[in-house]
């Protein structure tokens, strides 16, 4: 009964209206793809990439992780922050640490290096684009600029056991 054996030579029939929709749908997806490409590769809003492998069993004994906290690279402009994620706190949980001599001023570029010594954790700094997993064996790295002085919470966003809900810390930014 079929019009041609197995439809061997039949072309795909598409209703003209639906053909129009197919073009529109592809166009929409292309617009999104171009937008994320611009943000990522021209405006520098990038996702984390491979940074460094470490040994989660010994990481706490090795510099810089044996002394986590803030490093001033260029005063007033560039800072590195090393943080260890542990069940169930960040070490340190205040940046800069209360006894530290450095301050992080608004407008400075701050790079966060975070790894875990035990299970997987999350790391998200509120109000910024810094948002990544802290995975044992890997170092996560992202940079941000805090434009306004004030305090910014960084919270654990991945389930890590009993104390997960209270795992957070604060970055204090001065004028």
């Amino acid at each position, binding site marked *: 009964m079929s019009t041609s054996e197995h439809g061997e030579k039949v072309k795909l029939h598409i209703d003209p209206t639906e053909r129009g929709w197919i073009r529109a749908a592809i166009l*929409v997806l292309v617009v999104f793809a171009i*937008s994320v490409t611009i*943000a990522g590769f021209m405006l520098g809003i990038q*996702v984390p990439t491979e940074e460094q492998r470490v040994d989660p069993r010994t990481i706490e004994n090795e510099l810089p992780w044996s002394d986590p906290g803030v490093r001033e690279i260029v005063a007033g402009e560039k800072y590195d922050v090393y943080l260890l994620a542990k069940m169930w706190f960040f070490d340190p949980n205040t940046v800069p640490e209360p006894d530290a001599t450095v301050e992080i001023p608004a407008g400075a570029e701050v790079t966060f290096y975070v790894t875990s010594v035990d299970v997987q954790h999350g790391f998200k700094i509120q109000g910024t*684009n810094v948002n990544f997993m802290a995975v044992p064996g890997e170092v996560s790295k*992202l*940079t*941000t600029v805090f434009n306004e002085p004030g305090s910014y919470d960084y919270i654990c966003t991945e389930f890590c056991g009993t104390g997960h809900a209270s795992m957070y810390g604060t970055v204090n930014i001065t004028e």
Partner: protein
Amino acid sequence: MTSDNGDETQGEFKPRGTVAFVAAFVAVLMLMWFSIYIILLSRGATI
């Protein structure tokens, strides 16, 4: 139950309402997606 009219084909039915529906969908999609995109841009570079 509707009567079964085996002769009907796609050609006789113009899905005007569907076009309106998917057009509205694209408008909402664009609006929502770009509102998140603007949050992303406002929070600044990460490298």
